[in-house]
């Protein structure tokens, strides 16, 4: 490459982006960033403390964080084995594999309210399983905090499963062979070799699941309902607050934005590695 007249390393390339692309790219960036700027600008910072201290915001935040953590934990406990099955099902019937993968991905593309309706039809008082739960055990799940956890797990688990599956596919299976020749049982191989190797994928998946669970609204309000302290998560609280106390709603929004940023920070450069490996 010929050195240009500007002082630049002779091997440096130009960015190669056609100037025409800067316009839509800039618009896209503005589209994504400006709403957040407006949010930050409109928050009643002066009353921030008293809004948080007063109202139900603290209660909703505690509920959101707790339910989100529970949903993430459940996603990891159930999702890692599922990811294992998905990743190692290479020898199966391809149609069966595709079906399995489709089922896992459905909550990702399903509108959350639809997910909520489905959960009601399954676990509601008159639901497929809910009827038996009520009649045999006297258990009613809707309108309880566990219902929130269930709604959030439903939408969040696929993130965990797909992230871990990616990590499993990228893991070197020959290491498992080596462990086998050293006498390790299948459980020991999973616990001591496979799990530590996919830990970054699990962590990335867990962070994404947590973020998704925190933000869940449609399925939660449809299946779990809305009651302060029990089922009124932060997104629902923001929605309710908007009509009677917009300042409160903006404060809730800012808190959720801060959590989102924290999540992104936790992911950092794991973002690409964990999900797409």
């Amino acid at each position, binding site marked *: 490459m010929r050195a240009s007249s500007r002082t630049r390393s002779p091997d440096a390339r130009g960015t190669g982006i056609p100037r025409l692309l800067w316009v839509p790219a800039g618009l896209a960036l503005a589209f994504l960033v400006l709403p957040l700027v407006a949010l930050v600008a409109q928050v009643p910072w002066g009353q921030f403390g008293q809004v948080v201290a007063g109202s139900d915001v603290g209660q909703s935040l505690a509920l959101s964080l707790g339910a989100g953590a529970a949903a993430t934990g459940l996603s990891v406990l159930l999702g890692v084995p599922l990811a294992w099955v998905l990743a190692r099902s290479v020898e199966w019937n391809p149609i069966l594999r595709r079906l399995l993968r489709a089922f896992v991905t459905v909550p990702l593309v399903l509108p959350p309210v639809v997910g909520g309706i489905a959960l009601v039809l399954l676990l509601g008082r008159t639901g497929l399983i809910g009827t038996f739960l009520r009649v045999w055990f006297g258990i009613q799940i809707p309108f309880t905090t566990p219902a929130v956890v269930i709604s959030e797990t439903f939408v969040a688990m696929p993130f965990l499963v797909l992230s871990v599956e990616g990590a499993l596919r990228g893991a070197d299976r*020959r290491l498992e062979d*080596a*462990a*086998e*020749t050293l*006498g*390790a049982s299948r459980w020991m191989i999973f616990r*001591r*070799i496979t799990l*530590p190797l996919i830990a970054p994928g699990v962590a990335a998946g867990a962070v994404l699941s947590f973020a998704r669970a925190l933000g869940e609204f449609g399925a939660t309000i449809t299946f779990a309902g809305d009651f302060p302290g029990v089922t009124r998560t932060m997104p629902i609280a923001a929605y309710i607050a908007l009509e009677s106390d917009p300042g409160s709603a903006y404060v809730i929004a800012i808190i959720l934005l801060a959590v989102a940023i924290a999540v992104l920070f936790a992911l950092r450069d794991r973002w690409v590695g964990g999900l797409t490996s």
Partner: protein
Amino acid sequence: MSGLSASIEVARPAFTLALDLEVAAGTITAVVGPNGSGKTTTLRALAGLVRPTSGRILLGDRVLDDHDVHVPARDRGIGVVFQDYLLFPHLSAVENIAFGPIAHGTARPAAIAAAHDWLERFDLAQFASIRPRELSGGQAQRVALARALILEPPLLVLDEPLAALDASTRVSVRAQLKKELGGYGGSTVLVTHDPADALALADQLVVLEAGSVVQHGIPAEVAAAPVNNYVAGLFEH
């Protein structure tokens, strides 16, 4: 320990691997052949990672493979040193070596202590808490060897143990390997494409081409009287 007596047949897509191996305890047999000749399949069959289509593998008085028997890899007690060594990247050198004993039920402190002994023996004491990625090729190979030998297996198989090293290190590591294998009392099967390994290390040489043995014997004798062009080419300097 008494030796290995194996008659292995494995159907592969391109050919059928068929060979007999008799390796007395305390001796080293090298299986030499071009890539794709079936060397790795032989090794995996011995290790139990692949089940032979037919044949018999007998180690001492234990039947490992027969027409109605297949002892799984984890129960064979065969030491394997893999190409690329396959050290567990998230464990330190001493933890890698202790892995086998722990898998067999040894308490962790005892296993770690034994692993330290092996590191001493191989002159690697200062690398005990080092991760594999920070070890040189030669150091990694010795850790992999120690990891296999700590279980005192009656059979040790090595897959291209020097292939991952550059030419200059290979010579010194080969000499070290000879020394270390000298202290080992079981049967050793060494799989390699490099005849120099066979000449330096092995008591017996088996030449494999497209799944069949074309010549076998003492390395020096095979080199002196090659049976075909490939074998002759192996020993040309």
